[in-house]
């Protein structure tokens, strides 16, 4: 059971259930603020650059990127893994904290899940555009055909990846959506606008809140939660097999699946922290997302950061311990030192050392510092992927093939475009969808008072 005296209050201010609805729905009912338009404009400009880059990629070919016959994967795959990692936060929040019965997740999980869906969309764009002939992407799908039929290669990690990503996208989207159905019903029933009533009413799928519905809803949540827990582990493990199954030095390691999963959760939590600080400040959700929430996420980050540091050191140790000259070269001459050392140390400092600052309660409570560190962790995680993808490829077995890689404007534009897409998606989420799961917050509002009497009626203002 949740112990308020340990973790602090989950909702600040003494709020009635109705107030909870009103305050959470305030951004939807209110006028769109000016900054929203500005932010949306900036996002769309970024997105337009990305769209232009995609246009160039589609019309001219992947040759417009900086990748070459030695470094076949570049920014696109780095960004793919990075976005997928960020996407992990939603699922991890909802599922792990659900399983661990962490009540504080309720204020954050909606945002985290929304982030997941948008991030996975961004992520999925990369492997698609990265294909030489993206219009034939459906070849990856094992459908009956008139070629014999010719099936696909079930051994290929990319095929696993394809299945995993599509499953992930579908499952996280439905998980997110079904979580919102009762909230949509709340909007339908509280709003005064007819259009909103009709639109949100449609999306509420006829929800009334009857016990029959809640019963099955709980059942569904149980099933989805249970299987999504597997997904949290499986998706990034599978993404890691893209590397781990290959023969490249620096890729071919059994550490990758757990390392990737933890790394994904790490970057996801960092991105959640970024978003949550924004929500807190921009939308005055401070009462629902209290300092205690931020604190809890920071504590988790400290823990994961230690795992990350361990993973980095393990990798290096194993490279030495294996005695393989190719592995040793990759780690000692091409990562720790060498022309990509900046990326390596960027990764190491931002991911393994910087988060250790969160041991200090003072820092955990300073929203600005938390915000900046959360951004730096995401940068560090990007460096990690760069480190894995590029260093291994650029200098592998035969030195005659060694080649450098640097991105072109098209690749950079594509990445910026997905950031624009992500922020536009998040902005739409802020504007049109309840940022916090209303029914869940209402449910935990009873834990908000001293736990000794938490089953007694809480006192609240009368409904006017």
């Amino acid at each position, binding site marked *: 059971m949740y112990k308020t005296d340990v973790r602090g209050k989950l909702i600040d201010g003494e709020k009635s259930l109705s107030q909870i609805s009103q305050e959470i729905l305030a951004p939807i009912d209110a006028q769109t603020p000016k900054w929203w338009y500005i932010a949306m404009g900036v996002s769309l400009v970024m997105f337009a650059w990305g769209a232009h880059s995609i246009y160039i990629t589609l019309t001219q070919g992947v040759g417009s990127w900086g*990748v*070459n016959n030695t470094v076949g*994967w570049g920014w696109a795959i780095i960004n793919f893994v990075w976005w997928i990692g960020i996407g992990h936060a939603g699922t991890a929040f909802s599922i792990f904290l659900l399983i661990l019965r962490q009540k504080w997740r309720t204020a954050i999980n909606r945002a985290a899940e929304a982030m997941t869906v948008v991030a996975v969309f961004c992520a999925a764009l990369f492997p698609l555009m990265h294909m*030489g002939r*993206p219009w034939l992407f459906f070849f990856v799908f094992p459908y009956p055909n008139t070629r014999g039929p010719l099936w*696909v*290669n079930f051994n290929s990690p*990319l095929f696993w990846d394809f299945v995993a990503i599509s499953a992930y996208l579908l499952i996280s989207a439905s998980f997110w959506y079904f979580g919102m159905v009762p909230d949509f019903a709340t909007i339908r029933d509280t709003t005064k606008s007819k259009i909103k009533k009709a639109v949100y009413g449609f999306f509420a799928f006829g929800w009334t809140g009857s016990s029959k519905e809640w019963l099955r809803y709980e059942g569904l949540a149980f099933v989805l939660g249970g299987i999504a827990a597997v997904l949290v582990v499986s998706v990034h493990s599978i993404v890691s097999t893209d590397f781990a199954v290959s023969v490249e030095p620096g890729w071919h390691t059994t550490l990758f699946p757990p390392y990737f999963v933890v790394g994904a959760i790490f970057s996801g939590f960092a991105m959640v922290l970024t978003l949550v600080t924004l929500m807190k400040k921009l939308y005055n959700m401070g009462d629902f997302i209290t300092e205690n929430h931020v604190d809890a996420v920071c504590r988790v980050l400290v823990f994961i950061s230690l795992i990350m540091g361990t993973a980095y050191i393990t990798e290096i140790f194993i490279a030495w311990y294996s005695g393989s000259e190719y592995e040793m070269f990759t780690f000692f001459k091409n990562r720790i030192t060498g022309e990509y050392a900046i990326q390596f140390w960027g990764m190491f400092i931002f991911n393994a050392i910087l988060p250790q600052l969160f041991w200090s309660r003072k820092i955990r409570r300073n929203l600005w510092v938390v915000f900046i560190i959360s951004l730096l962790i995401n940068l560090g995680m990007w460096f990690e992927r760069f480190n894995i993808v590029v260093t291994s490829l650029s200098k592998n077995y035969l*030195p*005659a093939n060694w080649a450098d890689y640097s991105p072109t404007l098209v690749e950079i534009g594509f990445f910026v475009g997905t950031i624009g897409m992500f922020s536009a998606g998040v902005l739409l989420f802020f504007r049109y969808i309840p940022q916090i799961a209303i029914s869940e917050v209402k449910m935990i509002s009873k834990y908000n008072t001293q736990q000794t009497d938490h089953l007694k009626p809480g006192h609240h203002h009368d409904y006017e």
Partner: protein
Amino acid sequence: MKTYWRSIEELANPKELRRDEVREEAKQKSMLMRGDTALNAASRRDFLKTFGFGIAAASIVASCKRPVDKAIPYLVKPDEINPGTANYYASSYFEGNEYGSIIVKVRDGRPIKIEGNELSSISQGGTSARMQASVLNLYDDARFKGPLKNGQEITWEKADEEIVAQLAALNSQGGKVVLLSSTVISPSTKEIIQKFAEKQTNTEWIQYDPVSASGILEANRMSFGTAFIPDYRFKQAKVVVSFGADFLGSWLSTVEYTKGYTAARQLQDGRKEMLRHYQFESGLTLSGSNADVRFPIKPSEEGAIVLALYNAIATAKSGQLLSGAPSSVDVSDLANDLLENEKQSIVISGSNDVNIQLLVNGINQLLGNYGQTIGLENSLMTKQGIDGDTDRLLSDLKAGNVKALLVWNANPVYDHPKGKEFAEAIKKTGLSISLSERPDETTALCQYVLPESNLLESWNDLEPKAGIYSLSQPVIAPIFNSRQAQATLLKWTGADVNYRDYIKNFWKETQFPKQKNTTDFRHFWNTALQNGVFETAQESKLTYSSDGISQAASQIKGAVSGIEVALYESVAIGNGKYANNPWLQELPDPVAKISWDNFAAIPVAYATENGLKNEDVISINGIELPVFVQPGQAKDTISVALGYGREIAGKVGDQTGTNLYPYIGIENGTRQYFLTSAKVEKVAGKVFELAISQTHYSMEGRPIVRETTLDNYIKNPVSGNELKAEHESKSVTLYEAPVYNGHHWGMAIDLNSCTGCGNCAVACQAENNIQVIGKEQVRNRRIMHWIRIDRYYSENPENPKVSFQPVMCQHCGNAPCENVCPVAATPHSEEGLNQMAYNRCVGTKYCINNCPYRVRRFNWFQYVKNDKFDFASNSDLGRMVLNPDVTVRSRGVVEKCSMCVQRIQEKKQLAKLEGRPIAEGEIKTACSQSCPGNAIVFGDLENPESRISKLFKDQRNYHLLEELHTLPSVGYLTKVRNTKA
């Protein structure tokens, strides 16, 4: 995928149809260029047509209907031509002073591939990269489309009429006519020229070679009384000493020398002896990188070293010592080695200095090499130009003594050191006629251009070495309105005979009596034509005299201080005649691995001292050149390739690199291919991008090229390859070894025989429709060559050991690339091939990443029919060289070596039709067929009797990156160096 022929009409009757089409295309283009008024008038209707077509196309797309393909049969089908079946014709290649006997593959009327003719004792089935690429010259849009007068089209009849009239007028006045040609080795042509000279009484014929062998010719004239180039028999030599002669890369008859050299160095089938090769040179050449002992020297030091060697040998033979400048190198070991191998050594020099060549002759005479390893009978004829002749011609031209100048196959304006003076002089000459196939700097100044046909469109007979004859026959009718120069000269002499009949007659009179096999001339002629070669025994009565040798020694100058610039012919571009050939431009230099430019190769130490790095720009005597830091470059020297910086060559060759010909010095009447006391400065802040396709030099201590020395090899044949046993003992697998039912194709590459010349890369390019991608993309490390030659340096960067290793798809039994393809585009075949189904590929590039050898290539762009890649495959004409048996890959798919599966399929089918097993050596891949070093052997590993199975059992055999347990079907035989212990 791309269409490679547009319809079966080409298939059925390509010659005529294509020729007409191409003529039409050319006509349209020239009309467009001149802004023809008729064309303008027609523009409205054209607009309507285009408009109508646009809508029709839209409607086709909308209704998803396929365009209708036509199938047009022959009217009368020639017996020998069956659609879809290739015909092979023997012919000969002689371009840019390089000779090779070739077989031309003609598919549906189009020559598409050149292979080596195994019947020739000269090229012995080998080719050079330039011979392989020459087929593309045929389909070069830059070629002249018809005769021109002052740049205007003219008919042949009119041109002939005008010229004959002018010549007749000159003849009556006794005006001097000069025929300036490159070396002519055609006996019948020589006779025609003689006949022409008989008619045109005051005619002088001058042969001119841009990079001449004047020094050797003059020296031999002094030593033997005749100007000739002797027959170097590398196969019989035990020791070879080369002073700056890149006999494997560019010196005289490279294919022949490579054949002999590698034969004398190969250690297969238990052979335990091997030629030892010493090389003195400034820049690191192909020969130098294959040498066992290499001395980096300045070009000016060479004479003194040769003299020292002469004296060292003369001392031992108690001969007369010569006095001269002192040597900077101790040659006593070398002299001892030579003395131990008397009559079994060859000493050569690439210098054009008559004095040095005289001393070299003296050394060879002292060692008794003449008549043994250096033959005097079958002298090499491919370079006849004497430098003094052209200088005399220039002064004659300037003085106005020459009334008419006929330029045939020569481009002095570009490649003569006094090119500019030539240009001025030609402009002033009363009658200037060019008989050139393609536009160049000289044709641009001639009044008449009477285009010659390509060698694949021409008849010819050749005598590359005395007594060794070969024939050329046309394999396609002239694509453009061209005529052979011989036919033109015949016409002007008034002879009413076509050149084919002339040759036939000539052979009936001269060659037919030389043989006793047949009494039927028709039979003789047909056999000669079918074989391509006709060889007769020669005798020589030449004797050596040491005249002039002591004077030569006294004229040898010592080394000069200051930086010297060595000028050399590059392996790919040669003297620059075919600078417009994109295959050659894209072929990386075997040593520097740079394509598309010439550059200043500077020593490593010099670079560190002066803060220079690759792609910086330096100015040498005012010429700005990009820098390339070349390990092995001799101290105080810089090497720059000739043959670049063409101004009028075509869209590919124009302005590629810098022309260094004008900087060639003339000394003692011969051109010296180096500059002394050069002024070198760094051009600050300037960067010139170079298309370097291999940027890392070192093997990083990895067992990639495994090597040993001969001594160690004799003691222990496994020497250098000890790792293999270790790797095999450690190879543990969960899976059963792959099982092959019928065939298992494999390839063995003898690293001892591979000289790194790059012939295989171009042969593969021609066979497999590999696209040219241009400088920028090569620089982006996206070169498409399916077979690349990795070059590694080891030991001292000032004079490194060099290793070459051809790497293509290894067709691994446990291929890492196959596992990771999601769409099953690259599974393993039942015959052990790693297959690549282009049409299934979606382009994830995962296979590229997971190939430890990085032999997979990606089509980053649409390289065919794309104006951004305006090389060979952007015009219908250029695309005619494509092999119809190989898919032209579209954008976004991965491609790689297929072990020429189309050839395997063809021969298998033939064997099945004939109901017999495949014969040993019947299937040859493009790279193995024409390898001048016989380094590549292809065959069936399932057949225990096959050559390749034996080579795989050789103790030198190893696989690249064995430790990864990829089980390659390609094996390498360790490299053995013959360094003295």
